[in-house]
């Protein structure tokens, strides 16, 4: 039985691993493999965002009545992250190593501070106010 914090923190770590693998392949200019690794990274990251935006945040907002609080901030950071992923994808298509790594660097700093806030503040609040097994089941159903 997982808590929301444990479940989603594990997803963060998986996304980090996928990013690190992709970054290493780009650095070695192994473009074909990098493309596959990028797809996995992008799919898992966007799926994670979707789970939060479609299930976790509405559940939290519904239970606490707070709609312009931390969930709103998290959605805005997701939007910034999505934009950076798109820029990375364009750089990958052009095989532009410098742009991809530099955009990736920005993405990583943005997403790491975002993840830490979720893990240290938002998820524990969700565990406190929601039923973790029910929420996790709904997220997995997506």
């Amino acid at each position: 039985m997982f808590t929301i914090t444990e479940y989603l923190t594990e997803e963060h770590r998986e996304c980090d691993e996928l990013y690190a693998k992709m970054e290493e392949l780009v650095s070695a200019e192994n473009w074909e493999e990098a493309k596959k690794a990028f797809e996995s990274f992008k799919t898992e990251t966007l799926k994670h965002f979707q789970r939060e935006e479609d299930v976790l945040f509405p559940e939290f907002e519904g239970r606490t009545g707070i709609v312009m609080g931390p969930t709103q901030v998290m959605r805005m950071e997701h939007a910034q992250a999505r934009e950076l992923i798109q820029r990375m994808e364009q750089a990958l298509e052009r095989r532009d190593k410098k742009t991809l790594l530099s955009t990736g660097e920005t993405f990583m700093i943005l997403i790491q501070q975002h993840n830490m806030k979720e893990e240290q503040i938002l998820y524990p609040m969700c565990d406190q106010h929601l039923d973790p097994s029910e929420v996790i089941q709904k997220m997995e159903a997506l």
Partner: protein
Amino acid sequence: MNLPRGLSLLQAPPFIVVSGFFITACFLWFLGSLVELVAFFTDRLSLPLFVHITTLGFALFTMFGALFQMLPVVAGAVIDKPKEKALLSWILMLLGYIPFILGFYLKDLYLLLFGALLLLVAILYTSLLMLSKLLKIKSYTPTSKGMKFALFFLLLGAFFGFLVVLSYAGYIPHTGYLLRTHMLLMLFGWVFSLVASVSFQVVEMFFVTKPYPPFYAFNFPYLLIPTLFIGLLEFKISRLPLTVLVMFHALLTLHRLFTRRRKVAEKSLYFWYVSHANLLLAMLLFIFYGFEVPFLIAFGLFFSTLIMGMMFRIIPFLVWFHLSSEGSSHIPLMSEVIDQRLIKSCLVLSILLSLSLYSLPITKLELLPILIHLFLSLLLFYSILKGSLLYFGLSPLYNASK
């Protein structure tokens, strides 16, 4: 419900707050290197002058700038009207720093006393401002907890620093004891504990490493405090517990960096390596010699190298972040904010500075580290200024047409 306010970078203070402190720190470090050069040729170079150019002019300004950024973003402690409060802190700091350094240079006790008093006021104002916000936090992370203790030690250390100056002027006795307490509180209670507390968050975040052991990270201040107290006592192995703690932290950090999940080596990583190698060496010197010149040099190299590495990461990210949030039509890549060749040059010069200082007993080339410091601080100042100006040139807030 009590919600944490500083949940994201959206709570970050305006860019000018952080960049203002960083640019000033780099400029003062460069100016300080010129003072060192003049002092060398006029036979006025003294250890306190040399030390405070880096600890006050460079480190304290940078750390205050970084704390204005980190308090809301990392600790969730939002400072209202950050621009106004940061400006007041900056003015007070400058007003104290100038007479203080001149006091050491001219060996003028009254100027020194005046500068020390103003600096004490500046540190009191800034630390109490930040502490008042940190003390209101309901749930602490290892980083926010560590920051709270570090600021408390800064206050205490500054007070002892002022007492040292009073004792120089002959108003009170026990200069040696006061000086040792001042150095212990400032170097370990303030600088090291702030660096360690920030490491708990940024090492994992910047390099995607394993987190520090939670028990260690959460209890770090409680491990540090007794070692500081023991360090104040004068018996044969009184420095040992502190040395063990600091070396343990340095090795833990290096281990995390070596086993990081991101294998691509970004340039700031090398600043961390050089910095922590210097810290290990500093602690070896500390256990044998205490607060003697070799330790002070190695410890200074530890934090100044680390600060440079952090600046080269923070400024480009903040330029990107603020331009992105403001909807600027042109947002540079992080690697475009500061020329990568400049960062590389600063890294090489940092290593050369370390080598030139460590080899002093053999080479006796005292002018060489001063010259390297001059070039290094000039390059750093240029890099940080140029990176910051890029933001001001592109920001819609400062350019109505963009």
